């Protein structure tokens, strides 16, 4: 489908939601829902998306939507899928009349890397047919920017503030994709709203996969990362261009995970001179300000660059 045709698809996330101006989650959720192919039920863990789209008595969801607690988006999705299958088998119940129902679970990084990890792991292991969409804005933004397992090293948050003693968060980002791939599910992919065609295509593949699928979306947050709202898309693009967040997909073929780089990252793999230095990405965000002022922390910038390079090399080893 071309962009022009996809533009005609009605939006399933209605305007009037109260996510911040320039919110990357809003763009991502809109694009994810552009890929919906038939009857679909959505469930969302506690988080910015849930809070800001369903302020009573309003809802921004133009499809069935169920709120769940912080930790159990994946368990809830499992229940929805199991209920559908049971009704279908017995031929009774409100969902029995549908040929198929897609189930999408949205959760943030807090609800995935930390609080929802065991529910996610359990649902993947049981093999429920659903798509889990991780909206990774790299901290607990909804409650006021607390660090999560998804927060990158050196980012300042309210619970990992940058000061004289520590330079922001001390730990590296948890390798959630590897953890998910290790569950040997049919489909895992990374996406960025800065690349809408790639995102919508991958979401469609995820829906079509039989069994669990996992979509990891990189979601710039103007409020929590401290950058002007119009730069959300540009920053997402820079994360891909610096290879901090490469775009790829991984299918399980004959028991082996097969990684494929998506075109924006593949072109960098082929032309390594196009890979941009991580500094360009860091310097645009207030959460990394202390790496540049009052004095430049070349040691830390270098450390981050080396980490990005290592992760990128490790991906290339798997994907080429």
């Amino acid at each position, binding site marked *: 489908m071309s962009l*022009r045709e996809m533009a005609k698809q009605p939006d399933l996330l209605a*305007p009037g939601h109260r996510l911040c101006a320039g919110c990357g989650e809003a763009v991502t959720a809109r694009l994810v829902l552009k890929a919906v192919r038939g009857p679909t039920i959505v469930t969302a863990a506690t988080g910015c998306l849930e809070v800001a789209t369903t302020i009573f*008595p*309003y809802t921004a969801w133009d499809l069935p939507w169920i709120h769940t607690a912080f930790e159990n988006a994946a368990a809830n999705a499992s229940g929805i899928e199991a209920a559908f299958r049971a009704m279908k088998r017995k031929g009774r119940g409100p969902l029995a009349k549908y040929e198929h129902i897609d189930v999408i679970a949205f959760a943030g990084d807090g609800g995935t890397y930390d609080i929802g990890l065991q529910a996610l792991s359990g649902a993947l292991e049981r093999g429920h047919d659903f798509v889990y969409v991780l909206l990774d804005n790299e901290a607990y933004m909804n409650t006021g920017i607390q660090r999560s397992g998804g927060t990158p090293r050196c980012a300042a948050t309210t619970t990992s503030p940058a000061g004289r003693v520590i330079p922001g968060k001390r730990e590296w980002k948890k390798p959630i994709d590897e953890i998910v791939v290790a569950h040997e599910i049919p489909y895992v992919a990374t996406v960025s709203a800065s690349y809408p065609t790639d995102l919508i295509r991958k979401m469609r593949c995820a829906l079509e996969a039989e069994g669990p699928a996992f979509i990891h979306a990189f979601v710039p947050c103007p409020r929590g990362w401290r950058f002007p709202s119009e730069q959300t898309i540009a920053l997402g693009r820079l994360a891909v261009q610096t290879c901090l967040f490469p775009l790829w997909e991984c299918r399980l073929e004959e028991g082996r995970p097969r990684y494929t780089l998506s075109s924006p990252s593949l072109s960098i793999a082929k032309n390594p001179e196009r890979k941009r230095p991580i500094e360009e990405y860091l310097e645009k965000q207030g959460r990394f300000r202390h790496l540049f002022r009052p004095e430049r922390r070349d040691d830390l910038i270098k450390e981050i660059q080396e980490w990005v390079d290592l992760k990128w090399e490790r991906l290339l080893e798997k994907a080429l």
Partner: protein
Amino acid sequence: MTGQKSAPGWRELPHGAVPYKSSREYKTGDWGVLKPKIDFGRCTKCTLCHFYCPEGAIRMRGDGYPEVDYDFCKGCGICAAECPVKCIEMVRRG
């Protein structure tokens, strides 16, 4: 609970807290200071502004041109920053 004769069975419980109005009834168009102004003479109908708007406030019209719904635009400036031919300008609301 005091004063309650017998607790309701699960079948009698309400179906949960159900937001029953569309957020379309809640206008966010007054959030921003700036609003986009599109120069249709230069617009190439590429549709990118439609995809990148967090509010879904840009609709592609039948003739292929974008149209901003100022009832919901929060003035974030993404459309102006991302338009490949730079034909969107952010101007003061007034």
